[in-house]
Structures are given as structure tokens and as C-alpha cells.
């Protein structure tokens, strides 16, 4: 297991270098000059422009610029935002908890509903619940996120007035972030009603972001369960006189989880991509919105640093899934 982990970590090196290069190249491929964008309506003099070009190092050839960037990254320095003049790291850590909170809520939502739904559908294969669930999952999977978000906003925020439309917290409440998670900080603040406000702000973004993973998890759980339910060892479990709950929920699900965990891990990548859209729709102050804003501003350090951090996160999540996979599948654990 240790050797396997080391080997896996070693494969991170080329991936990491590749991502660094791609994130560096990506933003530079986009047309638009960051200095002009920054100057905006005011414009700027030729001298000032030349000064900034030297300051940002744009006068040097691209390979040299990349080398400077890479050596910085390897020393843990992601640079400073052109716009806010704050280090990319600081901005990332200030905004990341918002994204993490939303993503966690979305994946918990997706698992909490998708997993049992998939199990129940498989156990009642071909019956009404199964068909209804599978059609719904197909719709959920192919639903345009933007349209879905608008629909929910119109119904729950507009017509019913139950949920707020944007942000993480009502304007009535204010407190300094401690953990960065509104659900926790609102409780720590001791302000009554703050927690409820945090929850209400989370509901719609969670549903919007969680819909596709929910559909994917439900479908994968169902098909994995169907396969497992026809196995001999399920017959053995039933021959012991165990209850259907134990046979389906323990003996079958435990085996079906092996492919499902992979799918959950893969949805984390999808989730981060979905977060960009969801955060933009709901003005959620997380890294998704941060990335979009920075791309429009041509804020090179933020975009390349942000992409690099997001990619690293996906790699770490995939590794975690792999380890988890080993734990739930004894055959793999033994081999490693």
C-alpha cells in the first residue's frame, strides 16, 4: 500500500508540470491585453504602458516568462493579482471555503438521494418507481444547468419567496469568518437566525450543482446493484434468512459501492466545473466566480494559479478515491 501510494504520488509530477504549462498557455491564447483591460476607460500613456510591460515581464520571451512562473510555483509563490494586488494564495484561501461548502453540500445531497434511489430502483427493477426514477435521472442528467437554475429561482424565490436569490448570507447578519463555512460561522457568531439564513442561501445552489451528480450516482448505483443482485453470494445471503434490508443494503450495496465510489470521485471534477456556472448564477463568492471574473479581467496570475490549484485538488481527490477503492475492495487491497 505504501509503495503503491509513492508510485501514485510520483505520477503527479508530470501531470503537475503539464497543468502548469497548460494554465500558463491558456490565458495567453485568449485575445486581449491585460494592461489595456486594466486601464479600462481611462486609457494610459505610452510611457506608463511600457513601464507596466517591463514590470509584468511581458517584454521577455514566453519561455523565459514561463520559467520565471514555474520556479515561482515550485517555491510556493503563485504571484500577485494584477487587479487586487493581493497574493493569489490569499485570495484563493479567502474564497475557497465558499466553494468547498457549496460542493460538499451538493455532493452530500447527490449521494444522500442518489444512492438510496438507485438501490430501491434496482431492487424494484422494472416496476413503477424504477421507471419513474430512471426517466427523471435522464432528464436531470441532460438538463441545462442555467435553465434549471432559473426555473428554481422563478418558482422558489420569485413565486413562493422561500429562498434568497444570491449570496451566502442575509444582509442583516455580519460576522468575521472563522472557518469560512457559513453553516459553522453563523452558529459560532451566536446571532439568532444567521444559521437559518445560511441554510436558505445554500438550498438552491446545492440543488442546482448537485443535480447532475445526483442523476449520475443514481444511475450508476442502479446498474451496479442490478449486476450484484444476480451474483451467487446474494443468494447465499438470502439463504441465511437475512432481511431484504440487510441483503440489499449491506451484502449487495457493499459490492456495488466499488464502481459507485469511482463515479463519485469523477463527479468531483464535474462539480468544480459546475461550480463555476452555479456560482456565477447565484453570485456565490467562491473560486468559480473568482476564476470567471479573473478571466474577463485577463488577470494572468489569478487564472493560471487558480487553474493549477483546482487541478491539484482534482488530483488529490482522485488519489483519495483510489485509496478508498482499495479499502472497500479487499482484492485490490491484498494485491497492493
Amino acid at each position: 500500500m505504501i509503495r503503491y501510494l509513492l508510485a501514485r504520488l510520483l505520477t503527479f509530477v508530470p501531470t503537475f508540470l503539464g497543468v502548469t504549462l497548460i494554465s500558463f498557455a491558456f490565458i495567453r491564447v485568449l485575445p486581449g491585453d491585460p494592461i489595456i483591460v486594466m486601464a479600462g476607460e481611462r486609457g494610459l500613456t505610452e510611457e506608463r504602458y511600457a513601464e507596466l510591460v517591463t514590470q509584468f515581464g511581458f517584454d521577455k520571451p514566453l519561455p523565459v516568462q514561463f520559467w520565471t512562473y514555474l520556479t515561482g510555483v515550485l517555491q510556493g509563490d503563485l504571484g500577485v493579482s494584477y487587479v487586487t494586488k493581493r497574493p493569489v494564495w490569499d485570495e484563493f484561501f479567502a474564497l475557497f471555503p465558499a466553494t468547498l461548502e457549496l460542493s460538499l453540500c451538493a455532493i452530500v445531497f447527490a449521494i444522500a438521494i442518489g444512492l438510496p434511489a438507485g438501490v430501491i430502483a434496482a431492487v424494484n427493477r422494472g416496476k413503477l418507481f424504477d421507471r419513474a426514477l430512471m426517466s427523471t435521472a435522464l432528464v436531470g442528467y441532460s438538463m441545462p444547468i442555467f435553465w434549471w437554475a432559473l426555473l428554481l429561482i422563478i418558482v422558489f424565490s420569485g413565486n413562493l419567496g422561500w429562498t434568497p436569490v444570491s449570496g451566502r448570507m442575509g444582509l442583516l447578519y455580519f460576522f468575521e469568518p472563522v472557518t469560512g463555512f457559513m453553516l459553522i460561522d453563523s452558529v459560532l457568531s451566536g446571532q439568532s437566525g444567521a444559521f437559518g439564513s445560511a441554510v436558505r442561501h445554500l438550498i438552491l445552489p446545492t440543488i442546482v450543482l448537485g443535480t447532475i451528480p445526483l442523476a449520475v450516482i443514481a444511475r450508476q448505483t442502479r446498474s451496479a446493484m442490478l449486476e450484484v443482485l444476480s451474483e451467487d453470494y446474494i443468494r447465499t445471503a438470502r439463504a441465511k434468512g437475512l432481511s431484504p434490508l440487510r441483503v440489499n443494503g449491506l451484502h449487495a450495496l457493499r459490492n456495488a459501492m466499488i464502481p459507485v465510489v469511482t463515479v463519485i470521485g469523477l463527479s468531483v471534477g464535474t462539480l468544480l466545473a459546475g461550480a463555476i456556472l452555479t456560482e456565477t448564477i447565484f453570485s456565490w463568492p467562491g473560486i468559480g466566480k473568482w476564476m470567471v471574473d479573473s478571466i474577463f479581467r485577463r488577470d494572468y496570475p489569478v487564472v493560471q494559479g487558480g487553474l493549477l490549484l483546482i487541478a491539484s485538488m482534482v488530483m488529490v481527490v482522485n488519489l483519495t478515491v483510489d485509496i478508498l477503492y482499495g479499502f472497500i475492495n479487499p482484492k485490490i487491497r491484498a494485491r497492493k
Partner: protein
Amino acid sequence: MALLSIRNLSVEFATASGSFRAVDAIDVTVDPGDILAIVGESGSGKSVSMLALMGLLPWTATVTADEMRFDGKDLRAMTPRTRRRIIGKDIAMIFQEPMSSLNPCFTVGFQIKEGLKKHLGLDARARHARALELMEMVGIPDPVRRLSAYPHQMSGGMSQRVMIAMAIACRPRLLIADEPTTALDVTIQAQILDLLTALQAETGMALILITHDMGVVAETARRVSVQYAGQKVEEQPVGPLFATPHHPYTSALLAALPERATTRLLPTIPGVVPGQFDRPPGCLFAPRCAFADATCQNTPPPVQPPAKGLVRCHYPLGGPA
């Protein structure tokens, strides 16, 4: 009183191409401590009839019976929950494929102890002690270590021993062994059979042994039931059956056994067991029977009296038993 008594058991499967009768009006009676062998070619409904008794058939199966009693209790009238208190406790079953019959995600110990908790309510310490005892009973060396092993770390023979340990864990009064050795190496086959007969003698449980192996039948069983195409075609105590088979099918099975045979498995009889689409209108064995005539081809044969081995045949063989 009989421990198990089943009368007129039929099982129909709903398939894409219509309904298919896999078990057709079968009677099974087993007394306490009895050993019944069920023999017949592949596809003759041996497994399906026993799975019907266990309540383990998929929902596509429709089970009907005039009587299905275990220990005097009517299994048909029970709720599934009540029936599950008998299944795995008083009636246990082991299967043909030991390797795939154990759950790959749980340790051997976990799978053995599960029934002990459910049916006997033993605490963790008592479960562990009983599991060790069972591992020793079924002849698994190094039981302490084996209890925490996973199924993929064991051979087929070891897996079948674990299956047997699991099956006898709650001291069942009836054990059904469905071709328990078919998937194993020849040398292991004898060991597993010896183990089963030894455990049967030791515990006094009744045993239903489904097998292909006429040699095994001769050595192990007290009574033999011969099944063909979903029907029971003959039933006799083992001695008389080998001496005077009354059904042409039984007779054909025995024809090459045992001295003249190079293999102990069922000799091949020309032709195949009829399936869903080629069931003859009269006697199901008629297409392969050396004695078949027009009556056989058109009229289903009656069941003959016990003196004639309850055979389903118009023209039973052999003199009065």
C-alpha cells in the same frame, strides 16, 4: 411425522417467450435424519425445486404446491418474515459454486457469524467461539487466521468447507447440498462428501443431496429420487433402485454403472432433456426411450403405485419389487 413434506410442487417461469414450467408436480418427503439423493441430468429442475422450498427464486417464478410443510408448519401460509426464521436456521443450503457463493467484500468470520447473531442471538464472544468450533468441525486448518481471511484468499475446496460451516452454524434439521462437489477437483470431491456424511451422522440432520454422481448416490443415500424434465419419474430406497429400476430412464442411467463405466458420472443417454419449446405431448422421456410406443407419445403416463417405485411410465420395468 415427516420432517419435510412437499406435494404437487410446480414452478413456472415467466420468460420473454412465454411461461416455462421448470418443475412439474413434484413430491418430496424427507424424514428426520434421512438422506435423500436427487439425481437427474442438468436442466431437470433439481435446483429450482429446492430453491422454491427455500423461497430463493426470482420474482419471475410462480410457485404452486398442494402442501409444503416443514416440521408440521405450513411454509405456504407464512409471511416472508416468519419464513426467514426457518430459512438459514432449520433449513440450510449449500451450492454448486463455492467460490462465487461467498461475498468477496466480507471476511469468512463475518459471514459465518452473521447467522449466529440473527438466529441464535449470540453475543460477540459466543459467536467467535462457535465460529472457531465450526471451522474445526469442517476441517479448516489454522481457523483463527482463516476467520479473518477474505474469500478470494481461499481455494474452492476451502470455500466449500466455509459454506458448509455457515450452513450448519445454527444446527439445521435439514441440509440441502446442491451438487456440492461438481465444481471441485476430483480429489477434493471425495473429501467434501466424506465431510458431509460425517457431519450428517454426527448431528443427525436430514440431508438432501443433489448430485450427478451415481457412485456417490450408492455410497451415501438411503433413498433416491430420479428427476427428468421437471418431473419426478421414480423414487425408491437406494438398494432396490440399483437392483430393480422400474423406470426406463433410471435403467438407462444405471446401465453403464458402475463396473462397466470408465467414469462415475451419469452415462450419456442419446438425446437431450426437452426444454421450453420441445416438450412432447405424452411421456416426456418418449423421444429417448427404447420402449416408447404410440401410447407413450400421445398420453402422459400415470404415476404407478409405490411397489413400482412411483414411476411415471406406462410400462414399468422389472417384476414386483
